[in-house]
């Protein structure tokens, strides 16, 4: 085994963490302005009263905004690549959780089962919506 392989891993001689490599700082105010515009769009979206548009302006824009923040403010693109993988992996795990749990929790019927109480409870809540007060104390004995 050659010892040269090991030499490169000797590490940076730095003693003060983080000061030998400076992040490139872009024009943050511009990014902020874009974010604010996007915010306005996402608030305005529902006024068109088209559900698809609302969904897109709400969640599509949320994804874009998050991307802008993560890339420009958190500088994920200059961090080592594994950071991106790490974040992506945790998000994947959450998707997995959703996929595994949704067939039971999100559905009200399935193969050989149904959830009458769940449906009833939500219908009841729908009917007396607005008069929501007073339910809280009844729940807890």
């Amino acid at each position: 085994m050659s010892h040269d392989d090991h030499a490169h891993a000797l590490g940076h001689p730095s003693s003060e963490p983080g000061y030998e490599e400076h992040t490139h700082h872009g024009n943050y105010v511009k990014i902020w302005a874009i974010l604010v515009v996007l915010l306005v769009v996402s608030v305005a979206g529902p006024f068109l009263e088209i559900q698809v548009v609302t969904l897109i302006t709400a969640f599509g824009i949320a994804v874009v905004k998050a991307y802008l923040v993560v890339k420009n403010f958190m500088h994920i693109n200059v961090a080592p690549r594994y950071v991106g993988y790490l974040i992506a992996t945790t998000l994947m795990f959450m998707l997995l959780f959703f996929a595994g749990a949704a067939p039971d929790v999100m559905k009200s019927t399935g193969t050989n089962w149904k959830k009458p109480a769940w449906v009833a409870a939500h219908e009841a809540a729908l009917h007396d919506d607005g008069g929501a007060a007073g339910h809280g104390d009844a729940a807890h004995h």
Partner: protein
Amino acid sequence: MSASPIATTRTTAGMPTGRLAVWWVIASEIVIFGGLLGSYIMFRLSHDAFAEHAAHTNTWIGAINTLVLLTSSLFAVLGHKAADAGDGPKAAKFLYLTALGGVIFAGIKFGYEWPHEIALGYTISSNTFWSFYYTAAGIHAAHVVAGVIIMLIIAPRAKRNFDLHRVELIGLYWHFVDVVWIFLFPLLYIAK
């Protein structure tokens, strides 16, 4: 025993230790919010009733709070820039501004929005929508408050040019809290 160990100064993973650790914090926070919001979405998608309940949330306040957080994120990253330039006092000033954003956010939430809703009878136990609403926003707000406290601890030291790298670390965390709100906002306020 005040000197930090040599271990802390090493960077075999190609990143300063503090920043690496904050990324791990963020990863483990993602799954906390992921579990909660995942559950919320499951409930949300299966009940039309949720849309009705959500109609009672105040979009304008949500939007204002989003604006507040976005702006505070801007200050956080400007603080980071100042810290990188070695300008402690300026970094501290931006940290205080960021913290101010957090305070305004929490003030609006706890001082106006929630009392208002509770007065209207929408409490955490009214129904599952409101339970999720208060729980998710509450856990998020707890993160905001924690961030503010940490910034108030860091800023005075940064002002004297000590531990300037911490300005970046708290900034990373703060941006993450911001991103969580970016998703909470449409989930709780817009999709009606």
